[in-house]
């Protein structure tokens, strides 16, 4: 049914709606509200005419209907303005997203430590304990207990740095073996000993008076050369490449018998021959062997019952090979630009 009061409001309603549409800024809407919808506003004033109306209910309905329409239009327009204002604000907040981020400063290990840690972790994974020993040690542990007799050239003042007749800077980490064996009371041993070693060498690209080794030692009943081979194969696969192979060449160290030099298949050319392996397909990486019976005997193991293997890995040598580092002195200069070339990535 048609409301007979509709026309009463339609004209002003239309007028206000047009004003709303024409509003340019938020204040225009406030003005409209004040002028028409406030208590004494022009539109509100129309309500006074209800007294003259005969159908008061119909009048009220018509008024409210028109008023709602205006209110809705107002709030929609307001929302529109608010959205525009927000958009404008967000636009103003635009940044150059390619600028550098805040510094969280990731530090990097000298590749020396990276390799040292990797070697440690590989052997710890195989159940080895990591042992340490003194860098300044006595003749007994560095030479005597390792079957290096008094007049052996390795003990020469030419090659070894002495503090006095008995004390010296260890020339290999094999000395830690002797310490550990002394305290093991004839029990099985499975250790590695990483550490600094010293020789009386002039420093150049490939020589350093200070360098580091990881010594390994396993002693038990029934340990054989095949055990050493398998262990070093596993090491090579983890350290260099999963398809690495190793080979033994007969060699000589006073504290092992048999002694071997260990070559790893060139991880650069996969054995085809390149500049890294000097064309041979193989790279010499470490020395190893079966613990000499005299060494066992001197440390309280019966060589008829116990046997063992030992190996020595040069940390800088492995790092130089793996990363193609040209000069051992770079490790010790520790130029931060050099260090920061090596990130935390696991090598493939």
């Amino acid at each position, binding site marked *: 049914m048609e409301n007979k009061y509709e026309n009463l409001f339609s004209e002003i309603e239309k007028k206000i709606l047009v004003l709303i549409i024409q509003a340019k800024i938020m204040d225009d809407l406030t003005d409209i509200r004040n002028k028409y919808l406030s208590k004494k506003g022009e539109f509100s004033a129309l309500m006074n005419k209800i007294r003259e109306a005969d159908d008061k209910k119909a009048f009220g309905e018509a008024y409210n209907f028109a008023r709602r329409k205006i209110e809705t239009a107002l709030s929609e327009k307001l929302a529109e303005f608010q959205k525009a204002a927000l958009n404008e604000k967000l636009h103003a907040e635009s940044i150059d997203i390619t600028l*550098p981020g805040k510094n969280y400063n990731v530090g990097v290990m000298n590749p020396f430590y990276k390799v040292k840690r990797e070697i440690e972790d590989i052997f710890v994974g195989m159940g080895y304990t990591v042992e340490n020993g*003194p860098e300044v040690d006595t003749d007994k542990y560095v030479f005597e207990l390792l079957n290096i007799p008094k007049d052996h050239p390795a003990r020469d003042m030419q090659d070894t740095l002495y503090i006095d007749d008995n004390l010296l800077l260890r020339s290999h980490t094999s000395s830690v073996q002797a310490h550990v064996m002394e305290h093991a009371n004839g029990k099985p041993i499975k250790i590695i000993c990483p550490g*600094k070693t010293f020789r009386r060498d002039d420093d150049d690209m490939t020589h350093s008076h200070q360098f580091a080794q990881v010594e390994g030692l396993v002693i038990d009943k029934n340990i054989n050369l095949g055990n050493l081979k398998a262990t070093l194969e596993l090491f090579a696969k983890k350290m260099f490449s999963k398809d690495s192979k190793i080979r033994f*060449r007969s060699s*000589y160290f006073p504290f092992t018998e048999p002694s071997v030099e260990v070559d790893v298949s060139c991880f650069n050319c996969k054995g085809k021959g390149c500049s890294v392996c000097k064309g041979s397909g193989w790279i010499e990486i470490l020395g190893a062997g079966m613990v000499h019976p005299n060494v066992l005997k001197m440390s309280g193991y019966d*060589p008829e019952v116990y046997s063992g293997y030992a190996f020595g890995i040069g940390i800088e040598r492995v790092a130089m090979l793996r990363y193609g580092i040209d000069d051992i002195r770079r490790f010790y200069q520790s130029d931060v630009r050099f*260090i920061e070339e090596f990130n935390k990535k696991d090598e493939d």
Partner: protein
Amino acid sequence: MLVSLKEIAKYVDISGLKAEEIAQKLTFSGIEVEQIKKMSEATNLVIGEVVTCIPHPNSDHLHCCKVNIGDEIVDIVCGAPNVRVGLKVIVALPGAKLPKGEIKKGEIRGQESNGMLCALNELGVDPKFLKPEQIAGIEKLPNDAPVGSKEVLSYLGLDDVVLDLNLLANRSDCFALFNVAREIGALFDRKVTIPEFKDEGNFASDFKVGSETPNCPSFYAKVIKGIEVKDSPKWLKEVLRSQGIRSIDNIVDVGNYVMLLTGQPLHMYDLDKLEKTELIVKDNFVEDVVALDDKTYHLINGDLVVSSNNKPACIGGVMGLKSVEVDKNTKNIVIEVANFNHAAIRHTTSRLGLMSDSSQRYIKEINPHQSEFVINLAAHYVKELAGYKESSKIVAYDTINHELKKITCSYDYINKRLGSNFEKNTILKTLSLLNFKPKEVNDSEFVVTVPAYRIDVDGKADLSEEIVRYNGFDSVTSALPYMETTVGGLKDSERKERIVEDYLLSNGFDEVLTYVLTNEKDDNKFNYFNKTDGYVIKNPLTEDHKFVRKNLLTSLLRCAEYNINHQNEDFKIFEISPIQTKKVNEVHLAVAFIGKEYQQDKMIGLPVSYFNAKGLWDSIAKMFNISPSRVKIERISEGEEFHPNRSAKIFIDNKLCAVLGDLHPLVKKEFSLDKTFATVMEINLSVLFNTRTPNNKFVYISKYPVVSRDYAFIIKNEILYSDIKKEIKKCSNLIKDLEIFDIYKGDKIAEGHRSIALKIKLCSDDHTLKESEINEVDTKVREAIKNKLNAELRQ
């Protein structure tokens, strides 16, 4: 050791074997062949005769020659001063490849030249084997040289291949060609023929030999009369040349040749120059002597000296003396074959700086059981090359037990040690080929006799090595050790080191590596932990590597200096390392903050300061659960390395644990850090790691609200924050936390004072705080600030 394949072929059948094959097998069995060298690789050579030789029209030293090369006569321009008509010469024809390049047809100053007349060094012969005139001019071939022959290298004895052996200490037996021949014979199962000569001697000499020192356990001699000293024949010169030894004369050369063959050094004396017909070894001469190289050497006690009538005649095993030298006029000689102790020779050699082929062999130890064989071999060659008239019977002093070592071993031992499955027969055959003369003892054991020359072989383990090096390491079965399972891992200290290491890395510190050895100047710096008792190297190679460092900071700062000098500006570095002195063996950490710390790229940079180091210390102490109540902090009152008012020493339970702070401006300058900011810290990690602290345990978190109150006051500078904190905390145990949020010095604050603003946080574990309780604490705090700290509260 150089091994001429031409020479070795006289003693072992190597027909059909390539040099590469021999080298490969030797290398894998423990005798590394470092290099395979051809004596000369020159090609396209021919023997020619100079037919005409006229001076070059456009040169004052060149000659234009016509040279007969058999089937034609060619024009060659030659620059050698000794070129002349009738000379037999080596001609390199166009296309010849010589070490210096390829010969091409061409014109030399307008005259056609179709080749080059050569000197031996131009073919690749090392000049050290040539006389000066052989280098200055072209090689003069003998008159009977076959003109037109293209087998020039063979004619010259240069068609030889030489293996360069890198011998390890255990295989010094291979300093003898005979033993190399035996080794090759065994490896390839080929026939070995070692010549043996008996030189009976035709008179019994009254010559006396002896030794007064245990360092010479045997001394053999033979007197030979009526010899002629002259040049050695071509074959011997060539052999010596291929082995790297210069030919002198037939007598000296025989000595060297026999040494090359047997590994036993020999020495030749002129009998008539000896003071007395005796040679006695002594080790107590202290005097100057002139050796064969015309240099004077000073002998000391312990040097082995061969003497005659108590006058030195030879520095035993090292070098003979000028006074008894064999020369061109020598007619009668004494041949010495002695055994000198390797250590004694090594000491003398290294002290005098006199390394010879002879001393080198003594140092590596020689076969002590072959003196008679060697002296007979030498006498044989003296007879052959110098035509002696008389030779005496051997005179000998010998205290050596010549019984050969025997070793009994089981087959099982070999296989168990190697992880192999060698058959009995393989083991016996291998040892037999290697001259160990194995004999079966019973089903499980065998016995071997160690050959005299294998002085390195001592016991069963050595036999296992012989078996595996001979049969190859592929015969070893690869299998991981089968052991009782144990927990591996890092030692406690290293595990903790890794915690610190990882923390620092995660916070942008780079980990550096530096040298342990340092110089005297640096050794005297930063010794806050270990002031004395450092180790000093007795035989340092340089003064820069003489002292074992007593702290880490100095080397870390040298590293910082290196970086600053290499265009690195802002960085944080650290090192963790053992520090060892006569008293302690500790682990230290050193950290250096250099330059500025930037928030974003190079924007908003804050210079590093004391508080960087202090904050790092606080974090590390927190990581190891060190309670603040056990920590004491003091200003550094001694030493001159730190800024006196911006540095501290930190103690845990009164043990010095850390030093930290800004560097003293003068020290900064010394490390080239004067244009930047530098703050450092050194922590004795051993103290930190060894401090026992309570284990982590869950503590109830209060569920009641926290109330906070702020206070600002003006206080004298001398009153330290640690004192303020302590005093306020004492007011109530409801104070759970205390935070500083402002420090101000400036216009409105009186000189010598600062304004501090604090926030305290109050909370109870069992109830919500009442207004009255809060007010009570507030009053106490205000009183403490006013009365105890003598500070003025601000509104």
